């Protein structure tokens, strides 16, 4: 039983991030948005504020916890919607005739050629920035890739003999796709979901850093980084914590994605944990 | 021994605790033709790859592979590469994926010729054309400029044979060369291989599961089962008077025009059970779970190889069978 190291480490890191995000919904050491000027810019390691405070005296740990919630919600939100949309479009493209397949693939290619960041900027300009716009931008950015992944996986399953056999004992096209194609590409989609969940967090952080993502009173790790950089200057340790948090969560998700890739392949299923 | 093109002594091929080849020994005389028969999982392809030094990552060998006066098993990749394609070469099973898809077919054969000889580009091209003509490939000049995806399976396999014989090797290994081809093309490709090998006096190791091919082209044969040679000897003897139950079973269970009754009432005897996976081989003789003659001795001790036969209860056929 080969120990699936990347799955274990990945799952642990991801689990911690998610639990911190959940905890932050009902408990926070301090109110992350409440300025407390006297305690401003406390260094890390002080009694009340383990990681110190920012330029307005707001507690870093509390902000990091809320930031975790934002990342998880926005990242997961974007990835989930694109998974659902992409899987449906991909399956339709794979299971239907040449014209439908061609149009869906062409539209996906065009959407792919529009940089995600640009879509986000345009949306921010029109809809105004915020978590919802960011999720919408992520969806526009990820759905085409999901469609391509789902389509190619579905096409290879559709060539198998058990699909023809199902047709021979009376299964219609849609029941064949639902009963046989979808379960066989679920593994690929789950792996893709974890990777895009991670990419979503990165993109959200980027957009918030640029000021077009999540804005105060919402808190995002990207926002914390840009505030640290603008208000305090590059050398401040405040820029460390949000950056580290992003790396840990994204690394965790990517490792989990890789680990899942082996586990979900039926032939390799012996290498569970 | 310099008079043999290849001498394999007690070869083991394994990957961690998985042993795919478990002590195989055989010798191919210069210009000789040996067949290696075995079903999937018998270890025949890994034996061939071990001889060429092309084992996939993770697999390693023990035992000796004597060829051209050296033991190939302890040679480095660069030392081996000087012999591969020159004194020992190989033709693979699937012609569709064996050739480099992004390069013209001519480039691959010409670069081989120039790598193993000091022939210039023009001279190598001439040699390649002559080789293609000998493989009765149509319009050799244009064929050299063609890409693999533009050619049929049969044509590609003939090109593989041309590449393998380009430098007049001492031994050519053919691993299921015609399995992926259509039956009508199969015989033509085998004939081309047979003629070309005879002209060059090259020794041939033919690896296949198809017994009639061995009968048609080889002088001696070794039957492999679960990583071991269970029976070996001249083709005429082994195929007419098989001594190992597995060989007997193979010969009888394979439908050929000769062993079918007219009224279709006959049932061919089949070997019961399935081809054993390498992970859980039976103790003693690996064939004992499927063998009608198996006794306790077979279930406990692995039979030694005596005169090419590895079986405690060899079949004694009365003469006229």
């Amino acid at each position, binding site marked *: 039983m080969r120990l699936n190291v990347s799955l274990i480490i990945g799952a642990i890191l991801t689990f911690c991030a998610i639990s911190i995000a959940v905890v932050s919904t009902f408990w926070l050491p301090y109110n992350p948005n409440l300025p407390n000027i006297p305690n401003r810019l406390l260094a890390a390691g002080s009694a009340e504020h383990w990681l110190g405070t920012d330029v307005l005296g707001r507690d870093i740990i509390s902000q990091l916890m809320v930031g975790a919630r934002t990342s998880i919600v926005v990242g997961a939100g974007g990835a989930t919607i694109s998974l659902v949309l992409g899987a449906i479009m991909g399956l339709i493209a794979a299971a239907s005739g040449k014209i439908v397949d061609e149009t869906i693939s062409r539209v996906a290619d065009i959407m792919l050629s529009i940089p995600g960041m640009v879509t986000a900027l*345009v949306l921010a300009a029109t809809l105004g920035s915020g978590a919802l716009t960011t999720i919408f931008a992520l969806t526009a950015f990820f759905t085409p890739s999901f469609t391509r992944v789902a389509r190619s996986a579905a096409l290879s399953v559709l060539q198998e003999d058990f699909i023809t056999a199902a047709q021979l004992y009376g299964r219609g096209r849609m029941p064949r796709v639902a009963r046989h194609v979808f379960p066989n590409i679920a593994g690929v989609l789950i792996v893709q979901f974890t990777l895009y969940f991670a990419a979503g967090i990165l993109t959200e952080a980027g957009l918030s850093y640029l000021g077009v993502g999540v804005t105060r009173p919402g808190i995002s790790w990207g926002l914390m980084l840009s505030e640290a950089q603008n208000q305090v200057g590059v050398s401040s340790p405040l820029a460390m914590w949000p950056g580290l948090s992003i790396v840990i969560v994204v690394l965790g998700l990517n490792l989990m994605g890789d680990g899942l890739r082996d586990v979900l392949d039926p032939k390799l299923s012996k290498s569970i944990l | 021994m310099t008079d043999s093109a290849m001498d394999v002594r007690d070869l083991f091929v394994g990957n961690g605790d998985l042993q795919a080849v478990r002590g195989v020994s055989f010798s191919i005389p210069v210009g000789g033709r040996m067949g290696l028969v075995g079903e999937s999982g018998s270890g025949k392809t890994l034996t061939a790859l071990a001889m060429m030094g092309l084992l996939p990552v993770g697999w390693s060998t023990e035992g000796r592979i004597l060829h051209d006066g050296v033991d190939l098993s302890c040679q480095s990749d660069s030392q081996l590469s000087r012999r591969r394609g020159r004194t020992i*070469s190989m033709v693979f099973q699937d012609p569709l994926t064996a050739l480099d898809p992004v390069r013209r077919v001519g480039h691959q054969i010409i670069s081989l010729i120039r790598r193993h000889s000091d022939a210039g580009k023009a001279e190598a091209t001439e040699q390649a054309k002559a080789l293609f003509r000998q493989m009765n490939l149509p319009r050799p000049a244009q064929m050299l400029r063609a890409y693999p995806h533009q050619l049929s399976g049969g044509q590609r396999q003939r090109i593989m044979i041309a590449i393998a014989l380009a430098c007049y090797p001492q031994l050519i290994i053919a691993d299921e060369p015609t399995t992926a081809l259509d039956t009508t093309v199969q015989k033509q490709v085998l004939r081309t291989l047979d003629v070309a090998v005879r002209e060059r006096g090259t020794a041939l190791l033919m690896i296949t599961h198809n017994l009639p091919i061995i009968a048609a082209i080889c002088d001696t044969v070794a039957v492999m089962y679960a990583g071991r040679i269970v029976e070996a000897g001249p083709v005429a003897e082994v195929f007419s008077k098989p001594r190992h139950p597995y060989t007997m079973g193979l010969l009888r269970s394979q439908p050929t025009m000769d062993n079918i009754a007219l009224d279709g009432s006959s049932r061919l005897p089949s070997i019961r059970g399935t081809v054993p996976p390498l992970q859980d081989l039976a103790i003693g003789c690996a064939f004992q779970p499927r063998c009608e003659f198996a006794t306790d001795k077979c279930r406990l001790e692995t039979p030694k190889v005596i005169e090419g036969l590895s079986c405690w209860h060899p079949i004694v056929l009365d003469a006229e069978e």
Partner: protein
Amino acid sequence: MVTYLIRRLVFFFGALFAASVLIFILIRAAGGNVAAIVLGRHASANAIDALAAEYGLDRPLPVQYIDWIKGMLHGDLGRSFRTGESVADLVVSRLSISIPLALSGLILGLIIAIPAGVFAARNAGRPVGAFVGLLSQIGIAVPVFWAGILLSLLFGVYLGLLPTGGWVPWSVDPIQSIRSLVLPVISLGLILGAVMTRYVRSAILDVMNQDYVRTARACGMTESQALVQVGLRNASLPIVTVIGLQMAELIGGTVIIETVFSIPGLSRMILANVAAREVIVVQSTVMLIIVFVIFVNLMVDLLYSVLDPRTRLGQ
């Protein structure tokens, strides 16, 4: 070959047209009245109508679209609402910064990714291979802007070697311009390099298991010769495709890097206009970027057909 070219060109212009329509709609779909977006919610009704009339925003959408496209083709990218300045002039000066940044970032990324990918593939089984794999995993997880901040912290603040921001135009002091580009290019290159290392590694690994590489070795090549002479060329196909896809990613990275190092590139301009709700400017500049990305994809396709005879001569 000809049919392949025609098909690719048709798709190129089709994509351009579709993208322009998409952007045009995207901008109008949300706010409805562009002028209202520009002036913000609390602007008076007639101020909005006045602005709309002045910039022809009250004309029917198709007319506006055709007018915009005609303008684009003649280099007139429209005028900014605030300064009335022509977008075209703004863009030209910015491009002289963004293009060198993006391209050198990509090249650095490749310089990192190809050797690292080949090395990781060659040592896939061994721990050192896994180590490179882990490094690239971490590289992917680092957000571009954090990489920028860390690098400017290290080289700029502590070592004081390189400027950590700002820009000196080429005309004034080219060396200083280059020096202020170094850190941004490294940050962009590192992140892109990490992402592409994984693609290169899997492309090489996939190729190394192919039969034709084994045939090449059976013809007398050593493992490394077979990899270089046969493997690389075949592996270049998926790698070229990935580079095409990374283009969109690269533009995204440039936007962030220009902000981290406060470099007045094209992307930074878009960002400023987004903040200032200069919708027409955003529309034109974004379209410019999309033209660039789709053009690069066309080049990648053509390069692909040169490399792969199967696509060129048809299956």
